[in-house]
C-alpha cells in the first residue's frame, strides 16, 4: 500500500461539474471561435468544442478543460483562487485610469511652411502671429497641466509647425521645470516637427532639457515630397537631414517618426518600411488617414477605402515578419499595442485605443487661442467649424469646470465600450477602445453604428489577423510576445 495518493484522488472534486466564468466569444473564421475573458486572455476553440463547453459537458480529462481552467474561463470545486486572480488582473488592466491625464498637447502655433494636402489640423500659412499661442495663455495652460494627478507628465508641442514659435517652447519648458521643482513629476517634453527649421540653437536647448523629437516620414523621397509639399520641394531631404542631426546631438533613440498612408502609398509598403530601416528606425507605425481638416477638403481621406488600407497594412505586416524571421528585429507599433493587450496583463495606455476613451482623461489639448480640447482630433474638428469637443478655455475656466464638463463626460460615458451596443458583447472588446471623436465626425454621434464603422471594421480585421498569424506559426507567436513586451 503506497503512502502516496493517485492523481485521480485529487480529481474527485471535478465530478461536481464546473461553472462558467464571464467570457465572450466571436467567430474567428469558418470553423473556429475566439473566446476572451475580461482580462484579455483568449483561447480559440472549434464550434463543437465551444458548444460542449458551454453546455457543461466538457470532459475533465481533456486538455481543453485544463486550458479553460488555467485561463480562467471556468471554475470547479477543486480551486477558487481564479476569482482572486481575475480580480487582480482586471485591476491591473484598469490601473492607468487612476493616473489620469498624462499627455498634455500644446498647439504653440497653427502656422506651417509645409502645405500638405492631407493636413488634418488645417494649418495656416499666414505669416502673422494671430495663430501663435501667447505667453499668458501658456502660463494659464501650465497651471492646468499640473492640476492633473498623473505622476508622469508629458508635454507635447504641436502645430502647425511648433518650431515657428520656438521662443514660446523655450518659455514653457523652463517654466514647467521650475514648477516641477516642487511638483516632482516625471516630466518629459516632445516636439512634433517636420524638422525643416531645426538648428543648432534648438538642438542645444533640446539636449539641455532632454526633449524628444517626433517627426513625419512617409516613405521614399518621391512619395514623401508628394505627400508633404513645401517651397523647394525638399521636405524629404529636410526630414532625413534633420533626423541625422537630432541623433547626432541628442542620441540615437531621441527621435521617432510617424507615417501617414495616402493613396499614393498603396502598393508601396515594402519601400516605406525599407525607408524606415534605412533611416535606422527599429519599427514603424503604419497609420491610416483620419477624417479631419484638409484631408477631407482635398478628398484625400476618401481616396482609399478600408479594405484597400487593410491590404496595405497586412502586406506590410507580412514583410515585417519576414524581416524578423530573418533575424532583423523590427516592430509594427500598432500591432504591438494590440498585442500588449492580448499577450500581457498590462494595458498599453495608447490614447486612441482604450476604453473609457482617452479624451481628456489620458490626453488633453491646449490650443493656441487658449481653448481646451478633449483630444487632438477634437481640435482638428474645431478648425473645420465644429467645436463639439471644446471643453473649456484656459483664461475663463477652472480645472474642475473643464474636467467635469458635460462636453467631456458625455462622450466618455456614452462611448464606454463595455456598455455600447455590439461592443458590450464583442469578444474583441478587451483589445479594442472607443473613439467618440471619430464616430462623431463620421456619423454625428459618439457611438456610431458598429457594422458601418470603419474604426470597428478595421480593428476587428486586425484582431482576427493577428490571432490567426500567431496560431499558425510558433515563431510568429514568439515575435509577437517580444513586440507585446517591448
Amino acid at each position, binding site marked *: 500500500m503506497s503512502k502516496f495518493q493517485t*492523481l485521480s484522488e485529487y480529481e474527485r472534486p471535478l465530478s461536481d461539474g464546473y461553472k462558467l466564468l464571464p467570457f465572450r466569444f466571436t467567430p474567428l473564421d469558418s470553423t473556429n471561435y475566439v473566446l476572451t475573458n475580461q482580462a484579455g486572455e483568449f483561447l480559440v476553440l472549434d464550434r463543437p468544442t465551444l458548444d460542449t463547453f458551454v453546455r457543461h459537458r466538457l470532459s475533465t480529462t481533456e486538455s481543453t478543460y*485544463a486550458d479553460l481552467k488555467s485561463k480562467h474561463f471556468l471554475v470547479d470545486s477543486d480551486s*477558487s*483562487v481564479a476569482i482572486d486572480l481575475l480580480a487582480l488582473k482586471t485591476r491591473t488592466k484598469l490601473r492607468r485610469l487612476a493616473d489620469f491625464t498624462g499627455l498634455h498637447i500644446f498647439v504653440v502655433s497653427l502656422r506651417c511652411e509645409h502645405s500638405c494636402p492631407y493636413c488634418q489640423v488645417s494649418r495656416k500659412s499666414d505669416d502673422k502671429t494671430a495663430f501663435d499661442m501667447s505667453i499668458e495663455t501658456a502660463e494659464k495652460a501650465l497651471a492646468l497641466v499640473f492640476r492633473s494627478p498623473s505622476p508622469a507628465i508629458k508635454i507635447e508641442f504641436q502645430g502647425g509647425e511648433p518650431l515657428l514659435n520656438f521662443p514660446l517652447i523655450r518659455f514653457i519648458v523652463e517654466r514647467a521645470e521650475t514648477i516641477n521643482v516642487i511638483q516632482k513629476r516625471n516630466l518629459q517634453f516632445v516636439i512634433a516637427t517636420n524638422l525643416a527649421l531645426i538648428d543648432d540653437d534648438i538642438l542645444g536647448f533640446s539636449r539641455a532639457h532632454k526633449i524628444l523629437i517626433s517627426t513625419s516620414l512617409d516613405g521614399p523621397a518621391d512619395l514623401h515630397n508628394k505627400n508633404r509639399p513645401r517651397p523647394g520641394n525638399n521636405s524629404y531631404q529636410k526630414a532625413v537631414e534633420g533626423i541625422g542631426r537630432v541623433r547626432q546631438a541628442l542620441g540615437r533613440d531621441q527621435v521617432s517618426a510617424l507615417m501617414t498612408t495616402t493613396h499614393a502609398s498603396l502598393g508601396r509598403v515594402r519601400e516605406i518600411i525599407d525607408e524606415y530601416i534605412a533611416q535606422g528606425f527599429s519599427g514603424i507605425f503604419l497609420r491610416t488617414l483620419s477624417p479631419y481638416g484638409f484631408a477631407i477638403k482635398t478628398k484625400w481621406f476618401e481616396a482609399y477605402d478600408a479594405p484597400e488600407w487593410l491590404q496595405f497594412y497586412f502586406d506590410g505586416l507580412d514583410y515585417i515578419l519576414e524581416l524578423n524571421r530573418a533575424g532583423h528585429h523590427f516592430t509594427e507599433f500598432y500591432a504591438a499595442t494590440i498585442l500588449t493587450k492580448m499577450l500581457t496583463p498590462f494595458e498599453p495606455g495608447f490614447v486612441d485605443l482604450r476604453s473609457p476613451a482617452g479624451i481628456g482623461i489620458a490626453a488633453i489639448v491646449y490650443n493656441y487661442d487658449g481653448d481646451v480640447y478633449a483630444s487632438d482630433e477634437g481640435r482638428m474638428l474645431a478648425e473645420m467649424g465644429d467645436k463639439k469637443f471644446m471643453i473649456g478655455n484656459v483664461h475663463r475656466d477652472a480645472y474642475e469646470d473643464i474636467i467635469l464638463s458635460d462636453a467631456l463626460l458625455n462622450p466618455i460615458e456614452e462611448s464606454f465600450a463595455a456598455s455600447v451596443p455590439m461592443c458590450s458583447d464583442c469578444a474583441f472588446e478587451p483589445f479594442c477602445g472607443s473613439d467618440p471623436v471619430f464616430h462623431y465626425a463620421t456619423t454625428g454621434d459618439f457611438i456610431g453604428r458598429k457594422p458601418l464603422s470603419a474604426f470597428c471594421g478595421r480593428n476587428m480585421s486586425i484582431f482576427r489577423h493577428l490571432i490567426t498569424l500567431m496560431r499558425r506559426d510558433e515563431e510568429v507567436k514568439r515575435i509577437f510576445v517580444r513586440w507585446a513586451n517591448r
Partner: protein
Amino acid sequence: MLVLNGRALDFHNFQSDAKNAIIRVSAQPNRPNPLRKREAFLVTDQNPPEGFDMYIGVAKTASALKRISLDARTIILPDEFEYIADGDVLRIWPGQKQVRVLYRRNSSYNYFLTTERCNHYCLMCSQPPKDIDDSWIIEDILTAIPLIDQATQEIGFTGGEPFLLGDKFLRVLRTMKSYLPNTGIHILSNGRLFADEEFAKRYADIDHSDMMVGIPIYSDVSTIHDYVVQSDNAFDETLRGILNLKRYGQKVEIRVVIHQQTYSRLPQLAEFIVRNLTFVDQVALMGLEITGFTRANLPKLWIDPSEYQSELYKAVTMLADSRMRVSIYNHQLCLLDRRLWPYAKKSISDWKNEYMPECKGCREQENCGGFFSSAKIRYSDHIKAFA
C-alpha cells in the same frame, strides 16, 4: 560529494556529561585570548597554540594533536573532513561523538535546515518530512548566526516547511538581519502559510532588503499541483500566499521541478505565470534530484530531459520574452537546447555536485552545472562530452 555530517574517530578529554555545543573554528594561532576560550583551533602540522576551548584535527594530522597539552579537549575527525577551514561553524554532540558542519566560510552554498516537519508530502521530496518535535534546531541556528562571518553573501533556509515554525522562524530572520545585515537570505517554502495575510505582514515587517522566498508551483492546474505535493488546497493557498507576499513588497522566486507529471504543461504554466504572477522576481525551472521520495516514485517521475526540450524552450522563451528573469537549474549542458544555454545556471550545491564518467574530457565541464551526486541512480542516456 562533501560529507557534512559524521562520527568523530575520537573525542578526547570530554567529560561524560559534556553538553552539545556550537563552535566556531579558528586556524589563527594569534587569536586574542578571550576569543580562544570559545573557539575550536584547527590543528594542522604546526605547534598548536594554547588556550583554545578545544582542538580539532583529521586523522592525517593526528600526530600534531599529540603535541597539545594532555588535558586539552580534542576531536579527531575522519580525513573526509579535511576541507574544514578557518571561520567554519560546527555543531558537536560529545555524547554521540557526532559532528556536523553547519557553515563553511569558503562556500557560497550555506543553508540551514530549520525543521523536518512539512505540510506537503511531495512525490519528489528530497528531504522526506518527519512529524517530530525538532524545535531544538531553531535554538541551534540562533546560536550559530552570531558566529558566521559578516562578509557572507547569502545564507539559505530550508526544511521541511520553515514557516510552520511561525514566529520562532521569524525570530531567526530578525536575528540574521541584526547580526548579518549585509547577508542575503533565501528561504525555500511552499508559501501556504502566507495565505494568512496577517502572517505575511509580520514577515514583511522584518523589513530585510535582501530576503527572498523560493516557492514551488508545479502546474497551472490545481489538481496536478495538489497531486504532486500530495495535499488538497495547496495550489490555492500557495497562490494566495504569493499574492500576499507581493502585496507587502516581498521578493518571491517561483520554482518548478520538471518531471514526468509536470513537463507537458510547462508552456501553459509559463503563460500562467506571465499573466497572473508577472510581478514575481524570478522563475527557476529545475531538473529532478534523485533522492528521498524521488527514488520510491522514480517510475512515475523520471523522464529523460532530452525528451522535454521543446516544452522547456517554449516556457523559457515565453518568460524571458515577457521580461521575466528565468533560469534553468540542475541541467547538464549536453542535454539542453543550445538556445537555452544562456539561461542555465550552475546551481547544484558544491558539496553534492559531481560529474559522470561520460563527462571525462568534456571541454564545457567548467561551464556545466553537472549532476547531483544522487544522479548515479538514474541519469540521461544522452550525456556526452563535448570534444
